[in-house]
């Protein structure tokens, strides 16, 4: 009456005991991990370009907060390897479920930069069409999106036309009940979904040690029958290899997967945060030195896949994107307050019709007043 669990089953679900790595911090290639196929060289060069563009975009966005052009901006700096890998591991038919911090992933996925920043600009809650981009709205209530991701993965499975879902979540987000429910549902439904935890060391001010006592967050998978892995999230090559493998495994019908990527949030939580209150500058400096972009550049140069010209071209593109963002976000936002009644329901209720009339009258009165 009592079941025996085979060690083999458990071992197949457990992650590696140290994060998978392909490239050392100084850019030197390490022994390739047996279990993973390395990404094609051309893809790595493309990833480099996107990382350069992403970083520039990110810096530009932070500058825009200082100018009052964005309401708030949570920077991806230092997490570019995770974010670019997220975008590149997916095909067009796949879905991405991002958080507020994943602007760079969205940019790499091809979304319009201004549509990405619409939320953070305070213009509207979501700037893009989720269905058109197969990209869910950037999610703020932590970990809630992970359950949606499972539902959508199950929907894709039901339609039988393929497609995999990648859900992004932070280390802090893994503490929420919803994350657990998502893993559990994914395990039971064998949904084609991959969870990528960007463990950047902090949830705002709270360090990982106060967040979890787990040996590593990836060890949560086994408790749900979800296979798992941990990876050096500042190693683009390794992260892309691991996430791609997880995605393709899900695509092949082998079920959900949990990846923990170890990385670091180099900037404060958002522009409004004061990180000096809770962490040492020496710690930040150490991680700045472990920069994923520099690491990839050294690796590619070392392998002769990248030279000054390629770097310059990427930087040029990055400047172009930044300039476009600056320009397009330079103007004042135009918004019709009456739009707030338009999308509450497909058809407004009688109550909303009345309230809209009240606001319309107020606006008209204000306009009259203003004209004089």
């Amino acid at each position, binding site marked *: 009456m009592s079941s025996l669990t085979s060690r083999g089953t458990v071992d197949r679900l457990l992650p590696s005991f140290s994060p998978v790595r392909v490239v050392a911090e100084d850019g030197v290639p390490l022994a390739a991990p047996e279990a993973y196929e390395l990404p094609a060289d051309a893809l790595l060069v493309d990833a480099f370009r996107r990382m350069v563009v992403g970083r520039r975009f990110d810096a530009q966005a932070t500058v825009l907060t200082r100018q009052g052009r964005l309401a708030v901006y949570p920077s991806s700096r230092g997490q570019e390897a995770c974010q670019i890998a997220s975008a590149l591991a997916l095909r067009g038919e796949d879905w991405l479920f991002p958080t507020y911090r994943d602007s760079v992933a969205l940019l790499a996925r091809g979304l319009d930069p201004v549509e990405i920043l619409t939320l953070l600009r305070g213009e*509207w*809650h*979501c700037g893009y*069409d*989720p*269905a*058109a981009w197969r990209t*869910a*709205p950037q999610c703020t*209530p932590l970990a*809630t999106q*992970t*359950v*949606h*991701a*499972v*539902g*959508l*993965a*199950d*929907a*894709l499975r*039901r*339609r039988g036309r393929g497609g995999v879902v990648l859900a992004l979540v932070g280390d802090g987000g893994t503490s929420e*009940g*919803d994350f657990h*429910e*998502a893993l*559990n*549902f994914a395990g*039971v439904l064998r949904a084609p979904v991959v969870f990528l935890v960007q463990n950047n060391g902090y949830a705002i001010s709270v360090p990982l040690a106060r967040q979890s006592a787990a040996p590593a967050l990836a060890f949560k998978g086994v408790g749900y029958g979800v296979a798992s892995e941990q990876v050096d999230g500042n190693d683009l090559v390794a992260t892309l290899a691991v996430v791609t493998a997880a995605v393709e495994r899900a695509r092949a019908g082998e079920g959900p997967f949990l990846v923990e990527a170890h990385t670091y949030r180099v900037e404060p939580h958002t522009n409004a945060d004061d990180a000096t209150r809770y962490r040492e500058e020496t710690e930040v400096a150490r991680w700045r030195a472990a920069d994923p972009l520099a690491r990839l550049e050294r690796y590619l140069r070392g392998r002769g896949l990248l030279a000054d010209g390629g770097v310059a071209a990427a930087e040029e593109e990055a400047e172009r994107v930044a300039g476009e963002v600056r320009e397009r976000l330079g103007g004042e936002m135009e918004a019709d307050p009456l*739009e707030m009644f*338009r*999308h*509450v*329901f*497909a058809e407004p*209720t*009688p*109550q909303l019709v009345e309230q809209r009339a009240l606001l319309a009258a107020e606006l008209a009165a204000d306009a009259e007043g203003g004209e004089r």
Partner: protein
Amino acid sequence: MAAALNGALRDAMRDDGDVLVFGEDVGPLGGVFRITDGLTAEFGAERCFDTPLAEAGIVGLAVGLAMGGFRPVVEMQFDAFAYPAFEQIVSHVAKARNRTRGRMNLPLVIRIPFGGGIGGVEHHSDSSEAYYAHTPGLKVVTPATAEDAYWLLRDAVADPDPVVFMEPKRLYWARGELDRGARSAAPLGRAVVRRPGRDATVVAYGPAVPVALEAAREAAAEGVELEVVDLRSVVPLDDATVTASVRRTGRCVVVQEAQGFAGVGAEVAARVQERCFHSLAAPVLRVAGFDVPYPPPVVERAHLPGVGRVLDAVFRLQFDDEPDRTHEVSERAREVSRVAS
């Protein structure tokens, strides 16, 4: 009413292959109230299935499936057990359409058995409709008859927006004829006059409707003709029907089973006096559950607004502002209650 709900789910699933039913124990068991009885047998475990025991997960799964083009109908086992899903409901289900400027709608239904009167132990008799009604972006409906159970649920499943479908659990076993052939019920969003009357309007919904009707019968025996309005839909609220009735009768009592404070009855009372003030001969009175945690079975009858409490309010509709007086049980109501019991 249980059979009507079951029939509505069955017909909705037959008519639209994208309708999925899931939740706790809705599969082989057919739900603890048997509302999903036979659905797995008829439509297979792919379309009617048991989930792990996690309400946020259930609602979140529904969100994802709706994003993927399905029409999920989920069951919360009892309404206190929907609370774990509160964040998913308030922060996502209610807001998805608005968040995306109408590009992403979530046509899903959350079925919630609500209310007491079934001798249930703690947590099995809550009334939570006000939490949802207060949340912009959710439609909230509740049937009081078998016919409405069927048609409102069909409407809810077909609705382009998320609907919280509150099922008055003590009416599950109420008998009621239902002709599924021709639609007779009003559409979702419309209130109906269940009984016409000239002396006062009684507004009720869900489990309070039969109470209101019974009170009207007893009042009629006393020569007082009550008009009973069944809201059916709390959001959207059919102001027009309520207002027209009160302007005619000049008096209004609002009845709900839920605790009264900041409930749906407060909204109705506030609206009625806003819109009908000069037609009113007396304040709009409310009859509601007390503002206490739902009590244990042995005393639940005393908590539930019954015919006596409704009649008492009706017969107090003429009184002045003296607050103490409004809490006295009127002599007249006592007599009627005595006769009735």
